[in-house]
């Protein structure tokens, strides 16, 4: 469902004016400039629109606690009446792209997911026990603070919270919601062609995610690029991504 009356426009930058439309959705903690180099390589042959998603760059938070489904709905409302578009996402941006393709398949001609997130890592029992105990301790500190007026919770967050969690500010409820999402079911509903690109040295979203997504999706191809991690795949890896993306677009008549 889209509700254009409530949706504020997202800040975006447009690069190139000829050819098919590509929408670029950045990762968590970044903004549209994360794609400057890669999108620049497509500037002669595509119309590229690079968005700042709500809470990042120049687009303010629209609603505290939104999940990727709400991000996708907002974007669908912004793009209503246009498309279909090709979506290039990085990490968090891939989550939003998958949600959009599952909710509004008519708007999505294809997805290129670079270091796509949205699946849960396979964890050891030791890791799960540690996570559970930290979760319990976190809740306990909150209760103690409330009862005794102490300030244990901020210290606990400082000590055990991830960098993203500590820096999330008003986006913290969104972050908590997003990291606990598993998009396996949404991925199964994606019917458009999908190109999954992962850095072989990525530990945030390991290439194994790509292989799982490939199995879940009906029409997906997977590429693992040697020597790149979660972040430098967009900079050092720009040319290799360009090669893979162009071949994917050609093969699927998306040019």
């Amino acid at each position, binding site marked *: 469902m889209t509700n254009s009356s409530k949706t504020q426009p997202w800040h975006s930058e447009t690069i190139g004016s000829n050819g098919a439309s590509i929408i670029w959705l950045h990762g968590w903690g970044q903004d549209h400039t994360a794609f400057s180099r890669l999108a620049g390589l497509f500037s002669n042959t595509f119309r590229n629109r690079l968005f700042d998603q709500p809470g990042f760059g120049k687009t303010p938070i629209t609603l505290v606690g939104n999940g990727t489904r709400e991000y996708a709905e907002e974007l669908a409302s912004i793009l209503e009446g246009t498309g279909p578009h090709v979506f290039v996402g990085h990490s968090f941006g891939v989550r939003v792209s998958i949600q959009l393709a599952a909710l509004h398949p008519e708007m999505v001609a294809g997805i290129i997911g670079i270091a796509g997130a949205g699946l849960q890592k396979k964890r050891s029992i030791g890791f799960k026990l540690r996570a559970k105990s930290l979760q319990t301790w976190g809740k306990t500190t909150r209760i103690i603070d409330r009862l005794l007026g102490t300030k244990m919770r901020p210290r606990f967050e400082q000590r055990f919270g991830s960098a993203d969690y500590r820096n999330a500010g008003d986006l913290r409820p969104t972050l908590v919601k997003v990291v606990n999402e598993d998009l396996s079911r949404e991925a199964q509903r994606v019917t458009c062609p999908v190109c999954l690109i992962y850095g072989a*040295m990525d530990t945030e979203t390991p290439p194994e995610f790509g292989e799982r997504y490939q199995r879940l999706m009906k029409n997906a191809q997977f590429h693992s*690029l040697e020597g790149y991690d979660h972040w430098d795949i967009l900079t050092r890896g720009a*040319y290799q991504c360009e090669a893979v993306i162009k071949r994917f677009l050609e093969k699927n008549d998306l040019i």
Partner: protein
Amino acid sequence: MADKKVIAVIFGGRSVEHDVSVLSGLQFIEALDPTLFEGLPVYVDPLGQWWTGDALRKRSTYPVSQDTQLTQLTLDLAATATDRPRFMTQKKGFLGEKTEYVPFDLMVPAIHGSNGEDGTLQGLLEFAGIPFAGCRSLGAAATMNKQFAKSVARQKGLKVLPELTVAKPEKGAFLDPEALSQQLETALGEDAFPVIAKPSNLGSSVGVSKADDIDALVAALMAIFRLDSMAIVEPFVPNLVEYNVAVRRNADLAVETSAIERPLSKTEVLDFKNKYLAGGTPRGPKLDTGPSEGMASLNRVLSPEELTADQEKTIRQTSTDVFDALALAGSVRIDFLCDSKTGELWFNEANTVPGSFAYFLWEAANPSVSFLQLTSDMISEGFRLSADRLGSTDAASGDATIFA
């Protein structure tokens, strides 16, 4: 899909341009089409030992320390007789050391300067029958020696500055300023100063300096002789500006030129630091930011407006002639000197392994050539030239059989 070709990119090396070469090599690997090729980094350390390993792909690995996880390689010079080219490596196993092989299909020399760009590596690869990209040994050696390259250009009627070649004195001997003055007068005429002294066999402006009198020249030459055994002395071009252009043979085998650049410099002569570490941040280029670094981050003006149509034509025609005359290949950068007041242009030198393979000049060319296209074309050309080189080597085919 057919198996991907393994492209061994060799960089680093025993050269003063070691660090720049690391950047160029990594940039080439990063611009390989991953659907067709698999890049294999091969790092030559300053001692001349060869290494490979995933850690080499990251700029943060450099300078390489002893703790870096790398595998030492030896090139198998006899492998192509029976198989694909390959490296050998010794692995410690349960039953002692064991030789393992790392096969590849083509090597890309990304070593700048001596022991890499000068034909030595190319000669080794030709001898071993290993396909490689870029110039063959003849062109690489001919362009590395500035005096020789200029003499070929002169023979072809191309405009070059006069020069005096000075050999490094015997051990224990000194340069005689009087004899040097005499030679200078003969080669460059009276009132030759100011002059520019440069090593005969190095690129990247290493060791280039200006001398206003004979004492300064002697000092400059002695500094050069720490780097090279030959030096050349040329007249200083007043109102000097430099123009560079890249040349290559495209997929249709036609020679084409790139966009022209004018490197920017605050000083009269580009020294190494200005050229590669523009912005004054010596650690800058080591950031893992990808291809916009090294030569590419040098401050430059692309397609400078002040160039007249005639000057542009001269630059393009001369560089194409040099490319043909010296039988060059790959992405070659041809450098020109210009007196900005008179507009006069002189061919200065040819770099057969230019910094960053001059990809930024190709991307700015009309029509633009992407770095991806450039690497793919260089690889195809490398396979073609290596296959064309020998033809049949069977003694019987030349009627040269002795041991029947």
